[in-house]
């Protein structure tokens, strides 16, 4: 069973969302997602300042196997992208919830965060898929 920390929120498309407590969130892909993708070799990170809609594709993670779109879980502004991924895309494989984060977002509406999946619901989504 892949790891899904209980202090995070999730999407059905396998992003995780951490509330940074300062009106921003951090977004990455889940342990389950990185495992399914296999060795990650390239990440296209979103530009700082980009305005994104909820469920808009805004990053691309390429594994040896395939390219996968990463969707913004909430509408808002991208305030930072993880530059580490330019040189070390494998950080997503090694540390999906910490070093392998993808971007930080200032959501237009922080209350929308509560509408995303909690860890146990997400685990159910994963089980139903496999």
């Amino acid at each position, binding site marked *: 069973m892949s790891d899904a920390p209980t202090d995070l929120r999730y999407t059905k498309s396998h992003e995780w969302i951490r509330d940074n407590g300062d009106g921003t969130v951090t977004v990455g892909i889940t342990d389950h997602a990185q495992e399914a993708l296999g060795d990650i070799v390239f990440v296209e990170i979103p530009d700082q300042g980009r305005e994104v809609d909820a469920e808009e594709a805004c990053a691309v993670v*390429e594994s040896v196997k395939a390219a996968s779109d990463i969707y913004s879980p909430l509408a808002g502004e991208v305030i930072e992208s993880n530059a580490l991924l330019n040189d070390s895309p494998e950080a997503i494989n090694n540390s999906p919830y910490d070093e392998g984060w993808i971007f930080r977002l200032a959501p237009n509406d922080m209350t929308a965060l509560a509408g995303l999946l909690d860890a146990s619901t997400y685990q159910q989504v994963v089980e139903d898929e496999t």
Partner: protein
Amino acid sequence: MGLRTPLFSEHERLGARIVPFGGWDMPLHYGSQIEEHHAVRRAAGMFDVSHMRPVDIEGPDALPFLRHLLANDAAKLTAPGKALYTCMLNPQGGVVDDLILYFRGPERYRAVVNAGTAEKDIAWMQAQAEGRQLNIQSRDDLAMIAVQGPDARARIEPLLPDGLRVSAMQVEPFFAAEDAHWFVGRTGYTGEDGFEIMLPSADAVTLWRALLAAEVRPCGLGARDTLRLEAGMNLYGQDMDETIGPLDAGLGWTIAWHPDERDFVGREALTARRDHLERRDFVGLLLTGRGVLRPHQSVLADGRVVGEVTSGGFSPTLERSIAFARVEAGTPDDCAVDIRGKPVNARIVKPPFVRHGRILVDL
């Protein structure tokens, strides 16, 4: 659920990620595709290729039949054990399948065909064989393990049956040795030295476990694909198929045009294609910008589409993305590939990219 090889439970035991492939449930990787790739380039790796199908073709008409069936000339095979890579064409000059043909002795040949096309291939062979004196036997009773890499030879030697060890170790590249039950070809799909071992299915698990104990790393289809791409080897269904013939897939060298009077299936169409004015080139691409090349991406030059990527991916040895592409003849070496709507710089290079662990293209 797909078909399963005799080694399926071994793959599960090793924690393989299993994926459907050509009707079979096969291991994609056992944890890290990239580490498996490096193991083959630097030491030794093994692949369960039991999904591929050996087909024995025997009888008085075997040679004339094969000379008609295949675009390369089976008459080139005169030394026992010698192997030949060839395409089997349809009358339109498209590729029914690509295969390796081994010569086992007068009137005795063994072809090894792709997993996903095996049933189609055998039906095609049988249709072409009508009225001839020969027997076509699909060898579903055999398992197949490929051991590849610079250390493959040393690791495999102690594990071969006594009656085969000496002859298998003396076998030249692209030849095979055999005894009553085992067949060992010095062939492969990685650009490294190595052996492809066909053996009775009942013996497969024992050999697999012995290779594991000899520190030969199990490798999945993922590493097989990146290794063959680096080695400049085509993949059926991506680089060529029933509509894309050998001249458009970089396989012109496998066509035996001489002697002129040899009438093989597809010859007329191929000859017309050869003399056609709008030839396309089959080239290697090295991505100089950032990203990963994938099949069906467009190749761009002077702002217009001049071709298409057929096979592409990340090269673990080069740590860059590489590909094969079909482009208009005369495409400049400095070109670009459309990756998700953005042109990314690429350069045309001559495959193979890697052979015997060495990088052969300028980065």
